[in-house]
C-alpha cells in the first residue's frame, strides 16, 4: 500500500470505523450511566445559597483552596493544554471544514500561524503535565497504564498535526495520514476510557452539586 | 457561456514589493571568482541565471554593475539568441529565445569566446566542402540541355 492509498483509507474506511465505534460507544455509555438513576430523595430539600448544581460546576472548575500552591502544575498545566486543545481542534480552518462536511456547521477560524503557536504551547504543557505525573510520588503511585495510554492518544494527534502542517519529519502525505489515524484511535478510545470525562464532566459536577444542594451542603 | 463574460478581470500589479531577492550580489561575486580563474588558468565557465530565484530588480542590479560592452551578436537558430559582451571584458550575457520570442534560457558566460559564437571545426570542414562546390563550375557529367 503506498502513501496515497494509506491516506485514502484513513479518510474512508478508517474514518467510518472510528466514527461508528465512537457513536456506538458514546450512546452505549450515556444510556448505561443515565438509566441507572438514583434512589428518589424523599426528604424535603434544604436550599442554601451557593449550594446547587451550577454552583458546583463553577467551583469545581477552580482549584480547591490551597491546592494551587501545592500542585500548580496540575491546574495551570491542565488548563493550558485543555484550552489549547480546544483552540487547535475547533478554530483551525481545515478542522472547521471537516465538521462542515460532516454536520453542515461552520464558524470562523483563527489565522494558521496563531494555531501553530498554540499547538506548540499545548504540546509543551502536555509534556510538563506528564513529567509532573512521573516525578510526584503520589501521582506516580496512582497512575496506571490507562493514564499513560490516554496521554499518548491525546498527545499524538496534536504532534502529528503540527508536523504535517509544517511539513516536517515525514513526507506530507504520510504525515497527514498518520495524523488522521491518530485521531481515529483517539475517537475509538474516548467512550471506553477516562477520556469519556470530556462528555460527562459537566453533568457529573452538576449532579454532585444538586444532590448535596438538596441536603443543604455546598460542594 | 454568458457566465464567463460576467466575470470581471483586473490585472494585478504583481511587481509591487518584489524587486530584490538579494541573489544578485552572490552572483556578482561568483562571476568575479570565475573571471579570476579565466585570467589565471584560461578556464571558461557559465552561470545559469534560471538556477536561482531572481526578481526584476536583481537583473537591473546585474546589468548595472556589469554594464554594456562593445560586442553584440544575434544568432539565428530557430529563434534568436542574443549574445552581448558586458563592459567587464570576458563576461558575456547570452539569452536564448525561441521563434515566439519567449526566453528559454539565460546564461552568463565567463570566457574568451562563448561556445555558441565560435565556429566548430567540423562545421568549418563542411563549410570548405560547400565553398568548393560553389566555386567549381558544373562538370560534363551533369545532364543539361546544352544551354550554358
Amino acid at each position, binding site marked *: 500500500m503506498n502513501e496515497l492509498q494509506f491516506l485514502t483509507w484513513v479518510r474512508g474506511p478508517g474514518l467510518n470505523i472510528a466514527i461508528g465505534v465512537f457513536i456506538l460507544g458514546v450512546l452505549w455509555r450515556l*444510556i448505561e450511566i443515565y438509566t441507572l438513576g438514583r434512589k428518589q430523595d424523599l426528604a424535603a430539600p434544604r436550599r442554601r445559597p451557593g449550594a446547587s448544581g451550577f454552583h458546583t460546576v463553577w467551583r469545581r472548575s477552580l482549584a480547591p483552596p490551597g491546592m494551587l500552591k501545592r500542585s500548580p502544575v496540575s491546574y495551570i498545566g491542565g488548563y493550558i493544554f485543555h484550552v489549547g486543545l480546544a483552540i487547535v481542534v475547533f478554530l483551525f480552518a481545515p478542522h472547521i471544514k*471537516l465538521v462542515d462536511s460532516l454536520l453542515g456547521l461552520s464558524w470562523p477560524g483563527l489565522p494558521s500561524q496563531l494555531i501553530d503557536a498554540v499547538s506548540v504551547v499545548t504540546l509543551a504543557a502536555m509534556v510538563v503535565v506528564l513529567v509532573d505525573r512521573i516525578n510526584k510520588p503520589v501521582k506516580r503511585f496512582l497512575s496506571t497504564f490507562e493514564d499513560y495510554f490516554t496521554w499518548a492518544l491525546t498527545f499524538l494527534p496534536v504532534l502529528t498535526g503540527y508536523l504535517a502542517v509544517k511539513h516536517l519529519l515525514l513526507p506530507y502525505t504520510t504525515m497527514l495520514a498518520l495524523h488522521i489515524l491518530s485521531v481515529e484511535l483517539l475517537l475509538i478510545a474516548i467512550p471506553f476510557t477516562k477520556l469519556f470525562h470530556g462528555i460527562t464532566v459537566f453533568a457529573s459536577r452538576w449532579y454532585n452539586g444538586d444532590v448535596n444542594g438538596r441536603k443543604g451542603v455546598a460542594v | 457561456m454568458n457566465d464567463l463574460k460576467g466575470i470581471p478581470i483586473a490585472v494585478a500589479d504583481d511587481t509591487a514589493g518584489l524587486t530584490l531577492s538579494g541573489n544578485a550580489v552572490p552572483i556578482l561575486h561568483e562571476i568575479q571568482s570565475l573571471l579570476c580563474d579565466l585570467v589565471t588558468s584560461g578556464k571558461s565557465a557559465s552561470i545559469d541565471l534560471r538556477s536561482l530565484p531572481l526578481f526584476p530588480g536583481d537583473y537591473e542590479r546585474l546589468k548595472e554593475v556589469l554594464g554594456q560592452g562593445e560586442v553584440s551578436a544575434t544568432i539565428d537558430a530557430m529563434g534568436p539568441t542574443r549574445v552581448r559582451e558586458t563592459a567587464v571584458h570576458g563576461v558575456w550575457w547570452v539569452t536564448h529565445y525561441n521563434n515566439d520570442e519567449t526566453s528559454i534560457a539565460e546564461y552568463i558566460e565567463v570566457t574568451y569566446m562563448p561556445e555558441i559564437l565560435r565556429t566548430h571545426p567540423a562545421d568549418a570542414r563542411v563549410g570548405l566542402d560547400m565553398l568548393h562546390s560553389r566555386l567549381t563550375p558544373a562538370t560534363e557529367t551533369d545532364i543539361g540541355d546544352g544551354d550554358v
Partner: protein
Amino acid sequence: MSDDKTLAETLARRGVSRRTFLKFCASMATLMAMPPAMAAQMAEKLAKVKRQSVIWLSFQECTGCTESITRSHSPTLESLIFDAVSLDYHHTLQAASGMAAEAAREHAMKDNYGKYLLVVDGSVPTKDGGVYSTIAGISNYDMLVETAKGAAAIISVGTCAAYGGIPKANPNPTGAVAVSDIIKDKPIINVPGCPPIPVVMTGVIAHVLTLGTIPDLDELGRPKVFFGDTIHDRCYRRPFYDQGKFAKSFDDEGARNGWCLFELGCKGPVTYNACATTKWNGGVSFPIESGHGCLGCSEPNFWDAGSFYTALSMPADPVKYTAAAALAGAAVGVAMSFASRAKKADAKAAHQTATVADLRK
C-alpha cells in the same frame, strides 16, 4: 528504420545547425537543473549518437500522452527529440498501418536487439487472458512481454502505464495493471501524469539518450529532477495557505484574490510533479494558477482518492454507518442498563441486614 548517420548529420540535412543544437541543449540543461557545462557535453554527445531506435507501444490509453508530447511550441526540444530518435513504431504518428506496421516493429526489434528504448503508454489489462485490449490479435500483455525482452530500458509514460491509471480505478473491470507490475527485469522509468507535462517526457528521453543512464528515481520510480517536490512545495499560492487564507467556493472573493484552493479540494500537498515550476502550455499556467485545485494526477490510485472537490482534511467519501452505529450503541446501552438494574435488584434482594449481635459474633 535507423540508419548509420549520426544525429548531427541528420539534423544538418534538415537545416538544423550545430548552433541550434547547442542552444537547445542549453535550454534542456536549464530545465533539468543540470550544471551549465553539461549543455556543451550533451551537445557533443548527442551529435555523435546514431539514431536511437524507439518503439512506442500504446495499450489501454486515451492517447492523451501522445497528444501532450506533440504539443510543441514552434521548434522546441520535442521536435528535436523526434528527429533524434528513430521512432520505429507509434500507432498515432506512424505512416504505416496494419501488417506493415507490425512488420516494422518486428524488424526494429530484431535490428536493434538489446539496444532499443521501449516507451509504453496505457495500462495493460490482464483479466480474461488480456482480451480487453489487443493489437493485431496480440494481447497487450503478450506484446509487452515480448517487446520488453530486447529493450535496453522502458519508459512508462502517463499514470496509466506507470501505475494503472483510470482503467485501474474501482472496480477495474479489465484487471488493468501497470507496466512495472509485469516487467521485473528491466530498468523502468515512470513518468506519470494525466497527461505528463510535454517537456518532462522529452527531458527524460533526452537524458536517457544523451547520458545513456537512468536519471535518479524516487521510490515510485519517478525522476527526482521533475518529481522531487510536491506542487504544494513550489506553489505560488503557498503564502496564503500559511496565512490561513482559503477560497471557500469557486469565483468567490478569496478565489478572485488568488487565495489557496485547499478547501476546494486541491491535492497539491500530496502530489509530486513539476506543474508549479515548469507549468503547462509552454510555461503559461497550471491548474492552480487558473483557479482549479490540483487533481493529484501523477500519483498512483488518484482516481480512487476521494472527490476532487473535497479537501484533504475532509472524509474522502460521505461517512457511512452512523445511523447503524447509533442504533447499535443505543441497543447495547439499553441492554447494559437492564443488566445493571438486574444486578442492582439482585444486590438489593441479597442484602442482609445486620444487627449489633451479628457483629459481635
